[in-house]
């Protein structure tokens, strides 16, 4: 049981630690279900160069809702694909209802009673609901399809889910939520023992989620084991009985939801990584003092985009490092993309040195000397078949225009100087970038952005998936750049890293800014509390006095915007009481 920061938190933590201990070996639902329906033991799966899963144990009991938790790359989807027969396993055993199984493909897993409903509805909108439910296993009669039996069977299934729709209607005419439920009806038709729902709520609104949960509960009562994967913590806590946490392809533990506080869950998902960079931390904090009166470089006011990020305020001063903290899907990347001109904002304003600007494309952002380095290095970063030199000069050249080529000699000088400064290996400007390691590719990208002499550098997960040495080098670089007057917006799932480098930390949760804090005595635990619950633990005195008010507000606000917070909060509040009254009426 790891809890290195336990002593920095007060009495609350000691209470939290106890129940959070792995519940392994003591089946929580033991009264109702003595034997697990699914038992995976010592599952290992490797891909070239990566160990995706390493000796992971996982089990599910009938009649329970189980959640699989973990950040990107933790191995959640790999584990699901191992269970559903999409991937073969390198080591370990899978037991289904007491029998050893080994699936050669998804069809076999489905026949054995493991059904999956994926995030995107994989159905045919131009066919009827009944056809979709029975597709591939239509009842036959005299060599043809028995349409009557098909409609009857699908009507039964829909009734079982209390879904009142005509089986003959076109699937495409229904809302996404209903389509999702039809997909579930299809999945349980094959006498599913295990139903896997992969991010089923990501495109549903609150009422639709409630409808889905009603169906999940009724399936649970029928004894189906349900694996519910979602990055919405609130939903996990509402519907799930138990959860399993994975991190970096290994099992962290299995817990009863009721006994695991959110803060502990988040901490288990994110984990800890100790690096020898503590000196940076002190220097970073020392710098805070003299930049208080620094000019604001860029300032976002109520900047937002529908479905991506609620309107948010974000001022960034010259030479300031602002860290964005939050879970995957919290809106941290989405907010950064608006600032980098990658996506267009549909509300709010952006000002650079007080001057109003509209960023319609990355190109415009670059011309304002705002550089955005994507978290998705392979798809949105490197141009793999081009050389290191071409990759480094690309943005600068694009900014100059095609007709004013950078002279070959200048290109070589640029490439050489960045290869040396960032210690890019191999140090050959003519090497193709795709042949470099992840860390070196990241450095090439950094070089590309530094070459345009940015005034704001947005780094989205610049240290993800790279080795510890390169990580340290990149962190040092960020620090030095800020000392020289460059503003940096730094995003990382590793909170230690955010705290180490940032002057200020902005916390996001459920697509909303929930806090904007000076990094003055902030701890990982206080950030975890904000990420998990959207509010600060009341007895945490490390935070300054304005943070609780700001933190509760739905619309995040900087130091100067605290006054705008209460109205934003009020505006976002009403739906909850209304929803509860209607529920009260129904029952």
């Amino acid at each position, binding site marked *: 049981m790891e809890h290195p920061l336990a002593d920095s938190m007060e009495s609350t933590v000691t209470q939290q630690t106890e129940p959070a201990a792995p519940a392994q070996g003591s089946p929580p639902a033991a009264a109702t279900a003595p034997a697990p329906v699914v038992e995976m033991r010592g599952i290992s799966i490797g891909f070239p160069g990566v160990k995706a899963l390493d000796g992971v144990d996982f089990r599910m009991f009938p009649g329970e809702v189980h959640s699989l938790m973990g950040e990107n790359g933790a191995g959640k989807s790999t584990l699901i694909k191992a269970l559903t027969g999409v991937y073969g396993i390198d080591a370990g055993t899978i037991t289904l209802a007491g029998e050893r199984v080994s699936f050669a493909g998804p069809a076999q897993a489905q026949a054995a009673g493991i059904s999956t409903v994926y995030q995107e509805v994989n159905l045919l909108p131009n066919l009827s609901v009944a056809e979709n439910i029975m597709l591939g296993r239509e009842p036959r009669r005299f060599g043809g399809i028995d349409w009557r039996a098909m409609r009857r069977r699908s009507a039964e299934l829909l009734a079982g889910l209390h879904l009142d729709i005509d089986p003959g209607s076109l699937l495409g005419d229904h809302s996404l939520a209903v389509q999702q439920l039809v997909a579930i009806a299809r999945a349980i038709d094959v006498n599913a023992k295990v139903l896997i729902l992969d991010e089923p709520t990501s495109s549903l609104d609150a009422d639709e989620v409630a409808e889905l949960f009603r169906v999940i509960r009724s399936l649970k009562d029928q004894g189906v084991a349900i694996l519910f994967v979602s990055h919405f913590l609130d939903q996990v806590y509402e519907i799930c009985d138990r959860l399993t946490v994975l991190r970096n392809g290994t099992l962290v533990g299995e817990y009863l939801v009721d006994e695991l506080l959110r803060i502990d869950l988040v901490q288990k998902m994110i984990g800890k990584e100790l690096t020898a960079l503590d000196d940076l931390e002190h220097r970073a904090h020392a710098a805070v003092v003299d930049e208080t009166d620094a000019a604001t470089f860029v300032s976002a006011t109520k900047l937002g985009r529908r479905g991506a990020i609620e309107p948010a305020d974000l001022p960034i001063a010259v030479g300031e490092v602002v860290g964005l903290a939050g879970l995957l899907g919290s809106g941290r990347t989405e907010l950064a993309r608006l600032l*980098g001109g*990658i996506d267009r904002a549909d509300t709010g304003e952006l000002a650079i040195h007080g001057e109003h600007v509209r960023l319609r*494309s*990355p*190109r415009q952002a*670059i*011309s304002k000397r705002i550089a*955005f380095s*994507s978290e998705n290095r392979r*798809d*949105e*970063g*490197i*141009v*793999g*078949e*081009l050389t290191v030199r*071409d990759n480094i000069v*690309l*943005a600068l*050249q*694009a*900014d*100059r*225009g*095609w*007709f*004013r*080529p*950078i002279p070959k000699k200048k290109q070589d000088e640029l490439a050489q100087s960045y290869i040396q400064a960032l210690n890019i290996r191999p140090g050959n400007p003519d090497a193709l970038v795709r042949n470099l390691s992840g860390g070196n590719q990241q450095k090439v990208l950094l070089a*590309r952005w530094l070459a345009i002499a940015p005034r704001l550098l947005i780094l989205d997960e610049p240290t993800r998936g790279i080795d510890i040495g390169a990580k340290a080098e990149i962190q040092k670089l960020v620090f030095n750049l800020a000392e020289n007057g460059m503003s940096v917006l730094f995003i990382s799932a590793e909170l230690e890293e955010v705290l180490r480098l940032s002057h200020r930390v902005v916390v996001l949760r459920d697509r909303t800014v929930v806090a904007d804090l000076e990094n003055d005595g902030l701890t990982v635990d206080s950030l975890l509390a904000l990420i998990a619950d959207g509010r600060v633990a009341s007895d945490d005195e490390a935070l300054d006095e304005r943070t609780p008010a700001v933190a509760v507000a739905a619309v995040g606000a900087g130091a100067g915007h605290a006054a705008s917070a209460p109205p934003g909060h009020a505006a976002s509040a009403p739906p909850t009481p209304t929803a509860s009254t209607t529920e009260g009426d129904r029952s």
Partner: protein
Amino acid sequence: MSALAKMASSRLFWPVVMLLVLFAINLVAFPGFFEITVRDGQLFGSLIDILRNGAPTLIIAVGMTLVIATRGIDLSVGAVAAISGAVACSIILGSPAPGSLATVAVAITVALLISLVLGVWNGFLVAALGIQPIIATLILMTAGRGVAMLITEGQILTVNSPPFKFLGSGFWFGIPVAVIIAAVVFGLAALVTRRTALGMFIESVGINPEASRQAGVRARGLLFAVYTFCALCAAIAGLILTANTAAADANNTGLFIELDAILAVVIGGTSLAGGRYSLVGTLVGALVIQTLVTTVYTVGIPPIATMVFKAAVVTIVCLLQSPTTAEALSGFRRRLAVRSGKGVAAS
């Protein structure tokens, strides 16, 4: 030895070998194959014929190379060639002085301007509307012949205009005009894309469009430019083809030339998946295709077997270039090197 190995690993290695093999076959069948004679101050010979007849394909293949480098394809080049020939011929026919230089100049200018419009249309479908290039250009491929047919009113327009004919079969400083035009188009394309940053942007967009966009490359404008340039190349080729026969045939001018052009690009080592391109490779590819046609005649392969022969050669080139074969061959070379290295050590 290592120089040879380096050459062998070059993308151009197999196309060049193919070309040399074809030359050798021709030399055996026709000993005077490499002879070039000067008659009336004009160059004659099999090689000159190959260059002259291959010029239209090469010109189109140059434009096609850039389109393919952006992950696109342009199927409409044959139709655009037909339209430009039809436009030029109908203008020349409609003018009171078909033989005057001014008439021909106007005809050529109008034909090229129309091709620019057609290229912008393709660019619009691909870059602005985001239609898949193969579908987008298929529209003009099928509709274009119809447009050409309307322009020629269903007739084969035969023109008697010496300045126009000069384009197709004339000589300038002893060199066929078509060859000079092809050389100019090739040289300009190479110069403009490699001396400016255009080539790098084209490759970058072809390899990773989203990364290029985020790096500030104006991908949309680039696609417009590339498709427009390709249509312009097609129009130039169409004018040469039409001038060569002094007749505009809406149905047959540039028929299937898009396939030859794509083939030339692929033989030249530019991947249909986009990205790195080689104009020199395309040049070799176009020469291979044209030499193949000549070989069919010199060797005396019956016309009915021509297509099969061509298919066989193309299959061989593509097999040699496939990544799987390349891997197998390089493994073979490594084993060979290891064995010879051991031999040296032993002795």
